[in-house]
């Protein structure tokens, strides 16, 4: 690997969470997001091969990722008229206060620690919803509860988790 590519790859890796978060705001399919992540790296490698340095790397990565996502949707005939506009607005939202790699690292650590402190049922509920992609009706069936109840529980657990993370990042125990 050339020095230019190695340097840019290191910055890319350091900023990958910011890019993945943006990509998953466009489409919840994690496999697609991973595919696009690789596409962005390939575009980076091409720039590096031609000796071109990218200075605003996070913004550049989001732009390349956005175009790759739109291209994918077009190829699958799933493109909607508002795709580009909303994707652009989300990009601007991310650009306002970009999160640095160090901040990501701290948040991820804090979150893992807070997850350990959650009760198993609460953690399981989050797992089923946010990793297994179970919809509200399925969760309601599993919990023998109404869908509104499931939504309320999710909101509450998520809120507690967020409070805990903010507390840890703020230096106090927020639980």
């Amino acid at each position, binding site marked *: 690997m050339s020095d230019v590519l190695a340097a840019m790859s290191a910055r890319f890796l350091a900023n*990958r969470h910011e890019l993945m978060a943006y990509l998953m705001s466009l489409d919840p399919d994690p496999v697609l997001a991973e595919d696009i992540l690789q596409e962005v*790296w390939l575009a980076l490698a091409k720039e590096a091969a031609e000796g071109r340095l990218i200075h605003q790397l996070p913004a550049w990565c989001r732009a390349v990722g956005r175009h790759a996502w739109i291209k994918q949707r077009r190829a699958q005939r799933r493109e909607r008229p508002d795709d580009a506009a909303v994707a652009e607005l989300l990009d601007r939202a991310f650009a306002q206060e970009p999160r640095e790699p160090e901040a990501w690292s701290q948040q991820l650590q804090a979150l893992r620690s807070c997850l350990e402190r959650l009760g198993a049922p609460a953690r399981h509920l989050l797992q089923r919803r946010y990793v297994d992609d179970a919809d509200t009706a399925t969760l309601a069936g599993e919990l023998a509860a109404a869908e509104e109840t499931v939504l309320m529980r999710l909101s509450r657990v998520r809120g507690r988790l967020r409070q805990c993370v903010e507390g840890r990042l703020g230096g106090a125990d927020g639980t």
Partner: protein
Amino acid sequence: MEPDAGELLARWRLGILDAAELDQLQRILRDPQRAAAVADDIRFDYAMRDGLRQHAASQQRIPVWRPRARRWWLTLAAGIAALLLLAIGLWPARAAPGTWEVATGSVQLAGDGAAIQQGTRIPDGRTLLVANGPDAALRRSDGTVVQVAAGTTARLAADGIVLRSGAVACNVVPQGSGGRFAITTDRAVVTVHGTVFSVGADAEATAVSVDAGAVAVERLVDGSAVQLSAGRGTLVRATGPLADVGSAPGPDWSDRRPVALVRLWAAVDTTGNPRSYAHVPAQTDLATPTGRAAFRAALADEGAELAGRLVRAGCQAALIWDVEGHQAGSIMYVGDPTRLGDLAPEMDAAIDPYVAALAAAGLRTGVLLRPERLERGADGAWRQQPIVDHGAHLAAKAAYAHRRWGCTLFFLNSAVLPGRRLAPDAVAAVQAAVPGALVICEHPGPTDWGRAGGWSIAPTAAMDGDLALRHPGAIRVVYQPSGSERGIVDPRHDVLLREVADLAP
């Protein structure tokens, strides 16, 4: 997160927002403060997913990835066992039956650039890049071998390879009933059942040529298809018919006299001579009118003298290798005479009498052509851009050389192409632009033999027996270095001449 914003975004992703809701979402995102809060919530949700998976992994419970239903209120299918998380891939990649490993060379994984060396298995579903350097070869568990040209990006798929750009050459073992091996590009799907073939792809076209066996090629945009057998090829563009191109008898190749390979470049002092041309009088500054006039006169004299030597040596033609000179720091063998004025104005002003002298002596003349697009970047540097659909580019360059100098001999420099394979219609395009042209292919493909001569460096005139059987009209052009700029001194020369003469019909 404002519940409204989060719910609206989730519904947008699912494609179930109505117009009023879309408007509401866009208004929220246009408000900087609210948009920042939305982004923050998105980041938190992502981090939460990451934390949950890490937690599950640490509990030695393999996270289950389930296919996501399009309609969120339907129940999901049974889970699929996920793969272990990769260093960069935070989410499980698509599984691919059949395992791949690197047989020779090395490949880089897109996303982190990790290098996979020879003998190592390639993680499923990853996109690969073969960096500039030696080609690589991949071997699948069923014995299929795929050569991947330097500069190629490709992804291993369940039933073959998705070729993003570049070129692959495949030796596919018979797949058996129900088996399938396919190369998919942006434009086409090439399905095979056990054969030897090549596929090259870029954003504009996909080129396919078959050495042995049979393949089916289907254009994705409209489903039009063609079946190709050995010695046939096709070029898939966005529109237009899918032609079945094969080798065909070319112009008369019965003249077996030598072709002189002429180099205009020499390892000389480049002061005043930036393209390092030979035959520049000492202390001549080619940037000045006087210098250029002196160069033109010197080159004209050289042309006349060279013509005499080549005629006495029994040559039929002079093939000029490097009329554009050595472009310092970037490109050697430019192969684009249409750019002579931009790249070498001093030669542009001097070359015509030189070539005219050769032609006046009864010699055919020719130039080297490169199947790439020469472009000037924003930094002012010239770069060659590889293109799959290069037939028209080559034809334009050949037509220019023919109009200006009467050239009827062309060397196609296919070594610069990924996979070293010309487009199936490239030779035909040149011969259509210059009827009767003799074309020499540096690396002839199955559709080139017979139509053009195949370049060979082996020091023998005999045709490879298998090649002669597969391509009865094949012509081989043997390269034999002379060892001297001022005359033919290699002792093998006479022997080779006799061998070639003996083989002539």
